[in-house]
């Protein structure tokens, strides 16, 4: 009579569990590294709330520098994670990756005079990592990750709208207001399910209200710069 459990089965399963544990540990190390770079960049970026636009040329290069180390870590992560089923471990890095994306989005928005928003494919080429793969099982940036990152820069910018007024840069507040309202309209296009994305997207309306209030205060006092003079030219120090 054959035994209840084939003797080789135990070793086989045990070694698979052990392999899984090793993979997780290695992933955690890379993700930790990413997390550190992201936190540092976020810290640097938080200075925008107290830095007038004229001083950006000294601040932004530092941000760019630290973003480079994020990109390096993401590519390391990409190489490692691509060896394994993507969605098996995706939850381990999705948060720090979202944060990383949002620093990149915010950085590029701030550093371009016309305030360009990087599209998903721009982001993908920025990191040299593919985007929203549906058949190939490799590391990539998902649609949800991009959208969630977008929500978090909206939050940041709504705060900046207020602080830019404090710094005397009313033009920036108006620019932010236009940008956020356009994005808000964009998010309305999506069909969302009851998930994390829905929850985060729902919060955009508070950011919209915040910037609308700022713009209202400005217009009430006639502080909105003339329509002709836009963007970078109307810096007030």
């Amino acid at each position, binding site marked *: *009579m*054959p*035994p*209840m*459990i*084939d003797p080789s*089965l*135990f070793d*086989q*399963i*045990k070694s*698979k*569990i*052990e392999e*899984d*544990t090793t993979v*997780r540990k290695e992933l955690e190390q890379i993700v930790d590294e990413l997390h550190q770079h992201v936190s540092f960049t976020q810290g640097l970026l938080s200075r925008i709330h107290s830095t007038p636009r004229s001083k950006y040329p000294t601040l932004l290069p530092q941000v760019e520098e630290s973003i480079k180390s994020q990109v390096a870590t993401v590519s390391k992560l990409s190489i490692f994670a691509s060896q394994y*089923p*993507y*969605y*098996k471990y995706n939850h381990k890095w999705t948060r720090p990756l979202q944060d990383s994306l949002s620093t990149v989005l915010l950085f590029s928005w701030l550093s371009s005079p016309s305030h360009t*928003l990087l*599209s*998903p494919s721009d982001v993908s080429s920025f990191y040299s990592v593919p985007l*929203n*793969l*549906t*058949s*190939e*099982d*490799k590391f990539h940036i998902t*649609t*949800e990750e*991009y*959208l969630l990152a977008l929500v978090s820069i909206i939050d940041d910018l709504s705060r900046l709208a207020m602080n830019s007024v404090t710094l005397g840069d009313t033009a920036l507040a108006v620019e932010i207001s236009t940008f956020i309202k*356009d*994005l808000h*309209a*964009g*998010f*309305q*296009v*999506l*069909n*969302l*399910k009851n998930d994390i*994305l829905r929850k985060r997207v729902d919060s955009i309306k508070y950011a919209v209200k915040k910037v609308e209030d700022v713009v209202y205060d400005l217009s009430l006092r006639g502080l909105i710069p003339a329509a002709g003079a836009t963007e970078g030219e109307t810096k007030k120090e």
Partner: protein
Amino acid sequence: MSGFKRDWNGNAKKRDGPKPPPKKAVQNQFTHMFENLRDELDQHHDRRERIIKASRDITALSKKIIFALQRVRKIDEELPKNIQAEIDTRLADIAKLLATIAPEIQGINRYRYARSLMCLEELVEALTFCHYLKTQTLISPEQLSPIMDDLVRKGITPSEDVAMTDVNELAAATPEKLEEKETPKVSLTQDDYLYGVFDLTGEMMRFATTSTALTGTMAGGGAEGDDQPRTIVEDMHELGSFFEMLPVGQGNRFQWEKKLEVTRQSVQKVERLGYDRTIRGSERPKGWIPDLSGGDQPEEE
């Protein structure tokens, strides 16, 4: 949102003022991008929905198989005919469902929708239980995967002449193409297998309890061997030790610990059965059937 007035025919009345355009399709530089992203998200949500629906049905069918198997009274190569027939029809239904979702859970999507595929755990439970009742052994993942492949293949074959394109459109536009291509496989993950086997211990416990109560013997192998035939008590002990010895999976520690605890309880319940039978078994006349309505039947979990 706001209602509109109707004339007395019930037709919507025109407002006095100029009506706002029916849908304010706000167009700005981001609209196009968001429309693309919407399509990507929709694709994912729709697929997920289809998988969840099939998964729920597969779970229900698997549970019915398990119930049918619980009506078996002894471990034997041949299941009673009526039970085998019931299982076969259920499996045929499962096969069809599996075939519909198989193309959707290939490659990268296997893990993407892993949490929507809890049915596979249930199916593993049913298949391992069936295998145990026939052979008194634990089926290995290697033995299971051809069974799964076979199910999917059977699920696809009868529906080839019937038009069922809506679900398969992703895999193949034409049925010929589907034939040419290898039939998609529904792979089981290690977790599907292990958690299915965890649940198997619960089923074995229930089976041991009822079969012992009704037949008066502890289920086990035939007595033809010279040694004492192995009984379900030993099998449960072996399964119990098997899980105790395995390292805890890092992914879902909590669930693992919970399942392990339930397994421990099941092992102990069967142990107790073995003890009772050894102590009192000889006192009980052959064919004696205990009062199953009794309060302290360990049958209920």
